């Protein structure tokens, strides 16, 4: 995936990886380290917390906790931004991330990179770089485990969507 990112974006010079809080952040950090190792050059990294851009805030009762968005110090104007998330499902998070990104600046190009594409899109949004495409039915949930939060890197399909965690 790291190689595909640099191939698609044409090198590391103007590249900015923006992970979507929380697990997209972690995947972006892993990708970032891989790309830096392979290319031997520094790569800009940031994160997006899309909570305030969600389209269901008017209907959700208890308010979601808000994380902080961080930008690389150079900003994202005229840069090639790769939005990174763990799982692409309805496309609503990616829509929110795009809107937030546009409020931050004007990237010259934006790509969407996800570890898992599970189908089930509700918006016309498609990923550019995909780790793995997995077809799962609606009531199953895909959980991506990352070392920083879960102690290991793994992808699990949870049989039945748990009622509440």
């Amino acid at each position, binding site marked *: 995936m790291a190689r595909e990112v640099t191939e698609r974006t044409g090198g590391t010079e103007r590249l900015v990886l923006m992970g979507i809080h929380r697990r997209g952040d972690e995947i972006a950090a892993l990708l970032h380290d891989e790309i830096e190792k392979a290319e031997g050059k520094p790569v800009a990294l940031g994160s997006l917390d899309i909570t305030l*851009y969600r389209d269901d805030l008017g209907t*959700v009762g208890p308010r979601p906790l808000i994380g902080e968005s961080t930008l690389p110090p150079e900003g994202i104007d005229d840069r090639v931004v790769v939005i990174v998330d763990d799982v692409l499902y309805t496309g609503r998070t990616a829509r929110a991330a795009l809107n937030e990104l546009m409020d931050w600046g004007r990237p010259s190009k934006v790509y969407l990179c996800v570890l898992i594409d599970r189908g089930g899109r509700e918006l016309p949004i498609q990923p550019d770089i995909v780790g793995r495409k997995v077809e799962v039915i609606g009531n199953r949930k895909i959980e991506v485990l990352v070392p920083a939060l879960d102690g290991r890197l793994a992808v699990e399909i949870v049989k039945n969507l748990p009622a509440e965690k």
Partner: protein
Amino acid sequence: MTPTVAHFGKDLIGLEPLTGDQIRAILDTAEPFKEISERRIKKVPVLRGKTIVNLFFEPSTRTRISFEFAEKRLSADTVNIQTAGSSVVKGETLVDTARNLEAMRIDMVVMRHSASGAARFLAERIPSNVINAGDGSHEHPTQGLLDLLTIRDNLGKIEGAKVCIVGDILHSRVARSNIYGLIKLGAEVAVCGPPTLQPVGIEELGVHIFNRVEEAIEWADALNVLRLQLERMQSGYVPSLREYNRLWGISTARLEHAPKELLILHPGPMNRGVEIDSDVADGEHSVILDQVTNGVAVRMAVLYLLAGGAPEKAESAKGGAES
């Protein structure tokens, strides 16, 4: 599942009815909102399409502007109503004013009123969210919250902090909101000021009383210096501004006797040379402008938390959080 913040009801009337956890949740929510005001585009779409009325029956610059910035940075549509020139001077009652606003389909009211209890009175009569921006000498919850946030930012935590409120406690809604909030979060609270301006029975709230400002300075980690309303002098509560300054004013000379560095807060607007001297107000331990900055973030947090859907809708919305 996305972690969520506990709902604390339709309105924010005061800090007295809230639990420590609810207050902490508001302060924690304010943290990420600070960053939005540092952005180049200081706006997020979270309250898009919501209409908020800022209903000010008392003059206010700072609080009203702070609310207005908070509302606009969350993309709400706002209308400001000040009593001068409004139908209130034509004798309209508070409930009639509110019902008329309701009829125009508003979502939230931010109200400042000279009568204690006005905010609750209104909240019980209209379905919109009501935020108290100061009611008489009752409470000014968002000021209390921004003071808490500023103390937490600068001292690291509120639990165990010693905070002394100096000045006119009797007429001060800021003092009351501070006392409730600070005690709920585990701070030790004291008050200090002219005996004529101390409410009877204040110690029942769990605060210490200092009769001399020197003792307060020796004891405290932070001083919240209240504005002396100049009309208090005309009503005979204090003999003269000069005497007030000499006995209760916070000066560099007084602070030199402090065993540790003291954090200085003031809710504004300041009477320089009365309750606080200029070199203290502009000094390195003054966090008065931090309070103003935090005020916008805290108000954004309150608006965000109150503008959520009804709690009963929460069940059906669960599961919609997945990417």
